[in-house]
């Protein structure tokens, strides 16, 4: 397997807080890598440095061999990185299908037109994505009125719209029922394997993590304290202290 994402020695501090310290890992094509850790461990901060929203104080991020540190989020997206946010970010006044179409139009570079009508193109593509995430029946609804778990699905559909090489998912199943969580991540894992997408995700639901991840890395107070297969992590003493004796 080839590494789609390579992270080396990532650092980020906010004022006095060292949010992320010397984090290194790789994700390969088709692999599901879970990044877990207690609240405030620095997971979201890591994500934000990977898609260009924050710039790291130090460290290298390579996407398929290319250094992407310092590029803007929109440029990194064009290089094939899709992402979902911990706090969902969708276009609340637009319809569900329109949200996905926005991503498809953007991918095709067709958002500049002032005179065409939006919405005629990429309908079938949008519907295909929506049916994948189980949102086709709500395609006509406005995003602003959706339940939280459904918003997460819309985000996933949007993240898949540019046929990403790398998918970053920050707590993708928050707000869903336990069964739905496993189902959604199974779907993601299926897509990842079929299309060779590298997936990095965080998740607080350990059932999801241990059943879906190929590999798990554990972050605590900004530092990676363990990494390995689900079985290795399950039996790792350091991880147990963090999770049993720590904040969780």
């Amino acid at each position, binding site marked *: 397997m080839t590494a789609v994402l390579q992270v080396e020695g990532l650092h980020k501090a906010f004022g006095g807080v060292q949010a992320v310290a010397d984090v290194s890992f790789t994700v390969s094509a088709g692999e599901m890598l879970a990044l877990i850790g207690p609240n405030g461990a620095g997971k979201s901060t890591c994500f934000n440095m990977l*898609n260009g*929203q924050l710039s790291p104080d130090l460290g290298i991020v390579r996407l398929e061999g290319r250094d992407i540190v310092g590029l*803007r*989020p*929109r440029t990194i*997206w*064009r290089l094939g990185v899709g*992402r979902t*946010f911990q706090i969902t*970010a*969708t*276009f*609340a*006044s*637009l*319809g569900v299908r*329109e949200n996905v179409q*926005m*991503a498809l*139009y*953007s*991918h095709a570079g*067709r*958002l*500049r*037109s*002032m*005179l*065409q*009508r*939006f*919405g005629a193109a990429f309908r079938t593509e949008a519907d295909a994505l929506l049916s994948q995430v189980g949102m086709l029946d709500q395609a006509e609804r*406005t*995003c*602003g009125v959706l339940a939280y778990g459904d918003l997460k699905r819309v985000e996933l559909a*949007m993240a898949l*719209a*540019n046929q990403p090489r790398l998918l970053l998912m920050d707590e993708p199943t928050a707000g869903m029922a336990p069964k739905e969580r496993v189902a959604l991540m199974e779907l993601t894992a299926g897509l990842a394997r079929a299309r060779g997408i590298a997936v990095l995700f965080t998740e607080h639901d350990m059932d999801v993590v241990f059943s879906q991840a190929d590999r798990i890395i554990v972050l605590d107070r900004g530092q990676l304290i363990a990494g390995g297969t689900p079985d290795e992590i399950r039996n790792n003493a350091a991880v147990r202290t963090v999770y049993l004796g720590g904040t969780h």
Partner: protein
Amino acid sequence: MTLSSILIQLLNGLASASSLFLVSAGLSLIFGVTRIVNFAHGSLYMLGLYGAYTLIEVLGRTPLGFWSAVVLAALAVGIAGVLIEVLVLRRVYRAPELFQLLATFAVVLVIKDIALFAWGPEDLVGPRAPGFDTAVEILGKRIPSYDLLLIAIGPVVLAVLWLLLTRTRWGALVRAATQDREMVGALGVDQAKLFTSVFFAGAVLAGLGGALQIPREPANLDLDLAIIADAFVITVVGGLGSIGGAFLAAILIGVAKAFCIGIGTVDWFGLEISFSKLTLVVEFLIMALVLVVRPYGLLGKPQAVQRIAAEPSPPLTAPTWKMALVWMAVLVAVPLVADRYVTILLTDIVCFALFAVSLHFIMGPAGMVSFGHAAYFGLGAYAAGLLFKQAGLPMEAALLLAPLCAGAFAIVYGWFCVRLSGVYLAMLTLAFAQISWSIVFQWDSFTGGSNGVLGIWPSAWLADKTTYYYLALACCGLGIAFLWRVLFSPFGFTLRAGRDSPLRAEAIGIDLRGVQWAAFVLVGALAGLAGAVYAFSKGSISPSAISIAQSTDGLIMVLLGGVETLTGPIVGAAIFTWLRDEVARRTEFWRAVMGGVILVIVLLFPQGLVGGLKALALRWQEQRA
């Protein structure tokens, strides 16, 4: 300049800084706690001056009379502030932010006419301050001792405010609310009382700032909007909600202005530069500069993140062709049955409709509120007039080129504006409008100064009022149709998407700033078209077309009709223009009537007229079902 004249200018600047600081501190305090941009704050300042004038007449020109008059005037203005808060604003705290703004515009109109009624249209020159009517000699120059007193008052008030804010429970609440409005509600503090007290304090500061100016400046009816522009600039330069920042900014701007006057005209390498003409512009230049370098002002912090996300905007629905055609047919038919007067009024309405629709485009779907949209309307009008008069172009060519000129200004202004958001953005737009106004106002030889450009009449084939109405209808109708069409294009969807979630927009590859900039230029050009059509319909154009009042008229039209609907701005423009015309013919106090009507509408229909009527219709349908 010699050392002594530098000193003079410095003292002069510091003296005017004091009042500016008082007004801005009040504005900042109110904004910090209530998140209301109080446009009526300048009106409170104006009332302070008038109040002090009258009270001095009553109490006598003795030191005791003078100073009790100043204090009483400030307290009276404080009570006026409480009345505004309790009677109006308290009822709209839950309404969308922009509606609160509309309410404060209405208050501005009402207060202006109350002042006109009570004190008449003439400037009132107040007495000098007894005991401080002499001059002090410093470095051989004479400085009014009252100026020195004012210089001392600024820091004293700053110290008092600082003590109040840091040493009292009230101050702790104000600081907490400024940082996080929701938290105060959660702590179980009586929010209504806190807001009322903050309004009182802010209004007292404005009133005191005004009252103290009575020996230096005559009371007049234009002070309200003039001082609100200054106060906005100072608040924004200093940082919203920061009292210390307001002090710093007031000094910076007061001194810069004084120096511009003091330097006068200088000859630099044969190039004559008139600094005194810069006075009107210099504060806005400082503001534009500060905002680009420090987007939250000198001492400001990024605005506290609102925990409860603002209500998402409802989806837009496109007007149907059938409706549009019916309306077009009606508008085409009206001159056939109505008289000349109605045709002229309709021409006005059509121009303002395009103006309002272009403003709505940028503040509604694009999410960038502009307090200075008249800049583009006015610059378009001036471009038309000047291309016609100065460049000698045929009227038709001037009309077509004018929007391009307005758009060219929007390219420059917009570049700065899209770097900011929210209130800061709104105030920067106001600053650019004011810069444009100052330049047009002062450049006598080119723009005709305060007289404006006269004798810009349409070509012979358009001279007939009805024919010109059809031209206006065609130009503005096409402009509106174009803007609406754009709203439903990929570009328009991108704007709406960027307003809903800038984060997601960027994360799907959208260059949001670029898109917003393009939108700025687009609406600038179309507002310019509206202005050009308007200019030729009137035969003249004056600086008032760029004024703050013109900008707020546009905001009132949009908000009156409702931001959430596409047709709202047109309805708002029609009603506002028609009502103003009707009322102005009947009474001198048309502003108060307009303000009263707006207040009633604000209190009854917090979603605007069209939105409110739609909601009513919906409820009616539900009841029948």
